């Protein structure tokens, strides 16, 4: 499925809900600039869930990047866009 950047970020919000239940309270404020650890407080376990769910949802594999290389939601969206293009 072809997706634009906004659609990718909206999908990532759903995945963040799965990766971290407490994100539910922050959905309204999540955007590309939101920092995964500083703003959402994601732990390494949350990050693992985020990456696995993202792989399944977008049909991509995070083979060439480490989890710690993603700072913001926008960084993850950039990576997905590159993989899908």
């Amino acid at each position, binding site marked *: 499925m072809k997706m634009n950047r906004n659609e990718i970020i909206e999908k990532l919000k759903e995945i963040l809900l799965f990766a971290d239940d407490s994100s*539910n309270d922050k959905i309204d404020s999540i955007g590309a600039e939101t920092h995964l650890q500083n703003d959402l407080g994601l732990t*390494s376990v949350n990050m*693992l869930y985020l990456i696995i769910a993202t792989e399944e949802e977008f049909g991509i594999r995070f083979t060439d990047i480490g989890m710690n290389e993603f700072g913001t939601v926008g960084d993850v969206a950039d990576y997905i866009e590159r993989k899908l293009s």
Partner: protein
Amino acid sequence: MKWEPKECQPGDMIRIRLGRFYHYGIFVSENEVIQFGLPPTAENREKEGEVVVLATDINTFACSSIVETACPDRSELKKRFPPEKTIALARSRIGQGGYHILHHNCEHFVNECVFGDSYCAQAEDARQRWLNRPICDVYVAVIPQEVSEDGTLPEKRNREIDKIADPDRQRQERFCWQLLSLAARRSFHLELQDAGLKRRLGGKWVSSRFHFSVSYENGLAAVAVSNGTVSVAVGQQGGDVVRTLREPHMTVSLSAQHAAAVKFFLSEPDQTVLLGKQAFE
């Protein structure tokens, strides 16, 4: 596989628990545990350099945690390599890198050395949790004044809608099914044509791939799709979940098997947005 805190033998798979993760290694002796990277404690994470296969003593591996030993069942015992081969394989990998938390980690490493099979149960469990998660997504929208065919509806349903005499009802029905088409694609990665749709005796349409419910009133539409039973109604109170949206102002009620998993989306012509708490009264 069962794990127990018992005495280890050379070639055994061992592990320690760190938070919600386990760190794995191959036991050779008290002075030699071969593992892919040091245990990921806060202190070890600060150390720079590539993560490689290395050997430490058992205390460095354990990080003061309880060491558990794998207890393979009969079928797993048949599959595992002899301990000498496991140890030789593990030693031959010392110094190798290529670590990836998801695809090539300490659990993959020990399974390769013991079974010849790169496998990570922790990642697989998380993957299955995502794939089997309860889904209950409600898509709401304002029905436009003009709705034309978009080619997404099954032909049989399209013909039914064409036969509706009241043009206002025809417009609303067509839009609701187009919203269902979007919901199926977005929540289940399915085109309606592939959703196993059929009409039961009595006229109710059902899908063999997911449950759905459609409702509209006063120019507002709601479509619920779920992997559990679900029923949605616009403009009514009652049910497991009742929400009133601020914009567009509408009340949606829902009876659903997966009510705890319900998510609301506002579908607009150019985007579909996941709604947070601020969207509701």
